[in-house]
């Protein structure tokens, strides 16, 4: 297929979504033309395409836009886009522009169907449930295809954290190993490793995830650790388990594991990847239901992200998701320029932002919130308590929090994930007690502390529409499932209208 034209899949989605009718409603809804000239949806390693300064792809909710500062970028020879490892993958394999620089489960399925499972995405090392399974069978890749999960192999026991020796204060045993990667020869805790399964986090808007707002980590009770490279405080917001505190460490980890790079990244490669990662922004630009997200005073889309200072706490500055505050007071004249559906959707988004900030509920038994910090257990607050950074909704402080998404009894009972029994050897966990059943101990695999079992770093809320499913283990298949999880976890009592408003808000971020 010629470059610069929509793929068949993209054309199909455009038709299914009725997008042309939605985006042609007039200037009130359309800032720029989006989607129509997007190049092929899938970016394969080593293609040598030019990465445009602005690039749009459609999704179920509208259009995601990536924006590269001082773009375009020539990807030929660029280490983010070239298969620099041994398995044919590049960074871009799991950080696709159409998926907000992450990877959706749908994209993985489309890639399987398009290649018969031969794409490097499905490399045995982590693109299958376990390398020991028959790789040609779809079932061997079910976690990636159904929930967008990659296998992450962590060393056990953890021996150091923040440059200091660590001796874990818990024991870990395998209760259930449905994929065979935590038992058998050379696999599992007794063999010195643990396999867990996680979603790839988006590589975009990284200045926000690297920003440091205050000098302390109140969840851990220390000043922030220092970056081993530049001596500055680290944000602690890059990875799900906080195992890499800066981009160099993250990319070295990823290159060795996901790309199976046998040697080391060169300093030049590290610099080029970092340069790209700090220049790319991603956010939803257009809504199927609401139209352009940067019209009638709204400030959706990546331009606002590019132009704003990172690291601001919404509660003492610009409120989180105030980008859509203008839609709370659309004038009658402006309203008349919208379709009734567009108007209703925009008002719903603005309400959703207020629900996100102001609708309080009791938060209980969540380590990182209710312990060891002194907020108390329970504490009444809203979504923005943790999702507190202006423009991004990640945590200004290092965001290791246990929502229960990976740990019983709060996590859904999925029998295709490994289940571990953690036994605290010192003090019991502040909420789970001495024995914990978990699919993924999360931050505890990095810190070695039983009190950190189940903590997963909050991530960016931008580009959500492009990268289902959600939470680190793909627990929520869509945006409504995210709201439903919080509803049942904290017994919030959201009204149906509040739930829909939150879904609509998340669909435009």
């Amino acid at each position, binding site marked *: 297929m010629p470059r610069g034209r929509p793929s068949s899949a993209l054309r199909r989605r455009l038709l299914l979504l009725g997008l042309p009718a939605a985006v042609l409603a007039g200037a009130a809804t359309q800032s720029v033309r989006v989607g129509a000239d997007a190049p092929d949806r899938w970016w394969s390693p080593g293609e040598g395409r030019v990465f445009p300064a602005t690039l749009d792809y459609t999704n179920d909710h509208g259009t995601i836009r990536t924006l590269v500062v001082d773009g375009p970028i020539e990807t030929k020879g660029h280490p983010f886009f070239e298969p620099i490892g041994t398995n044919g993958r590049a960074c871009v394999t799991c950080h696709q522009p159409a998926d907000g620089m992450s990877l959706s489960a749908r994209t993985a399925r489309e890639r399987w169907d398009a290649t018969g499972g031969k794409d490097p995405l499905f490399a045995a090392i982590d693109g299958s449930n376990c390398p020991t399974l028959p790789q040609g069978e779809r079932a061997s890749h079910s976690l990636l295809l159904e929930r967008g999960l990659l296998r992450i192999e962590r060393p056990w026991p953890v021996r150091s954290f923040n440059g200091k020796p660590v001796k874990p204060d818990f024991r870990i045993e395998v209760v259930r190993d449905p994929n065979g990667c935590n038992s058998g020869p050379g696999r599992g805790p007794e063999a010195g490793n643990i396999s867990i399964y996680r979603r790839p986090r988006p590589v975009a808007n990284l200045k926000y995830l690297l920003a440091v707002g205050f000098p*302390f980590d109140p969840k851990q009770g220390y000043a922030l650790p220092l970056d081993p490279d530049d001596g500055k405080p680290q944000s602690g917001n890059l990875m799900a388990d906080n195992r890499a505190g800066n981009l160099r460490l993250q990319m070295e980890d990823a290159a060795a594991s996901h790309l199976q790079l046998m040697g080391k990244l060169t300093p030049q490669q590290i610099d080029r990847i970092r340069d790209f990662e700090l220049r790319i922004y991603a956010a939803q630009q257009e809504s199927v239901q609401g139209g352009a997200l940067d019209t009638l005073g709204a400030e959706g889309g990546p331009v606002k992200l590019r132009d704003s200072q990172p690291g*601001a706490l919404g509660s003492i500055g610009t409120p989180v998701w105030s980008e859509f505050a203008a839609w709370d007071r659309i004038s009658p004249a402006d309203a008349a320029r919208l379709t009734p559906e567009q108007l209703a959707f925009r008002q719903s988004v603005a309400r959703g932002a207020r629900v996100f900030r102001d609708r309080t509920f009791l938060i209980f038994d969540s380590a990182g919130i*209710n312990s060891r910090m002194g907020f*108390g*257990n329970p504490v009444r607050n809203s979504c923005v308590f943790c999702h507190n950074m202006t423009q991004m909704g990640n945590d200004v402080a290092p965001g290791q929090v246990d929502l229960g998404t990976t740990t019983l009894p709060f996590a859904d009972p999925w029998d295709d994930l490994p289940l571990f029994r953690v036994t605290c050897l010192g003090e019991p966990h502040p909420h789970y007690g001495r024995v914990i059943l978990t699919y993924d101990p999360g931050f505890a695999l990095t810190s070695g502390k039983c009190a950190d079992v189940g903590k997963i770093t909050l991530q960016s809320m931008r580009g959500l529409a492009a990268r289902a499913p959600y939470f680190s283990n793909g627990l929520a298949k869509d945006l409504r499932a995210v709201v439903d999880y919080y509803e049942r976890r904290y017994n919030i009592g959201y009204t149906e209208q509040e739930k829909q408003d939150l879904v609509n808000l998340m669909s435009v971020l």
Partner: protein
Amino acid sequence: MKSAATLLALLAPLSAHAAETGALVRFVSCPVYRDADSGKKSGCWLADDPATGLRWDVSHSPYKPDVGMGVLVEGRVSAEAPTACGAPVLEPVRTSRLDTPCVRHVLPAEGYPGRKFKLPPRNIQPLSVARPVPPGPYAERTFVTYFEFDRDFLVYQYDDFIIDNAVTWLRAAKPKKLIITGYAATRPETVTGRKLAERPQVAQQRADAMAETLSRLLPGLPIETRAKLAAQPTDHPDADGIPGQSQRRAEIRAVF
């Protein structure tokens, strides 16, 4: 430091005069959460003194209880009306979470509004706000941080504020080294019929925790740590006149 007489006055008995403003109250109990809703962090923390049967509003503590765990309450009777949470108020007050399980008890608001959250006086500015350089001359000086009972965890919007101020001064003063002394109140005291004493090792743990934090904030500055047991109360202002709080401390001494 004040005289021994002043310190004795600070330690003066408790529940007999508990209703008098300024009287010291100290007891062990199970906390009760009242789900008052005046917005974020507006709920009430209550605790019953088993010796008197009085229910106190302990919500002003910088670190709040866990509704499923016991609590050590130390505070002074306040003149604040019991309108926010439905109980007389202790302020200043400290609550320390104990390792004894409690029956969880969450009350509805029952018409009490709680308190609309406002930032406590001890809260730090973002890093984007420049800290004024404290004027010299600089000489040996000691900063004091405080802890929950038997814990070494830095208290949010309390210790971080103290440390932030200390670090601002230390960066300007450029001392030769820091000597951090962790203290533990290891001498047993009977509170509500329960013998309470901190673990001896928590003294060193407090010193180590402060040393780790200061090594990150002041990289390269030599730090020595020490531990002292059987800590005595002090009248340092950041302990807010609560003797038990003043015992559970770490002192950061700048040496030139």
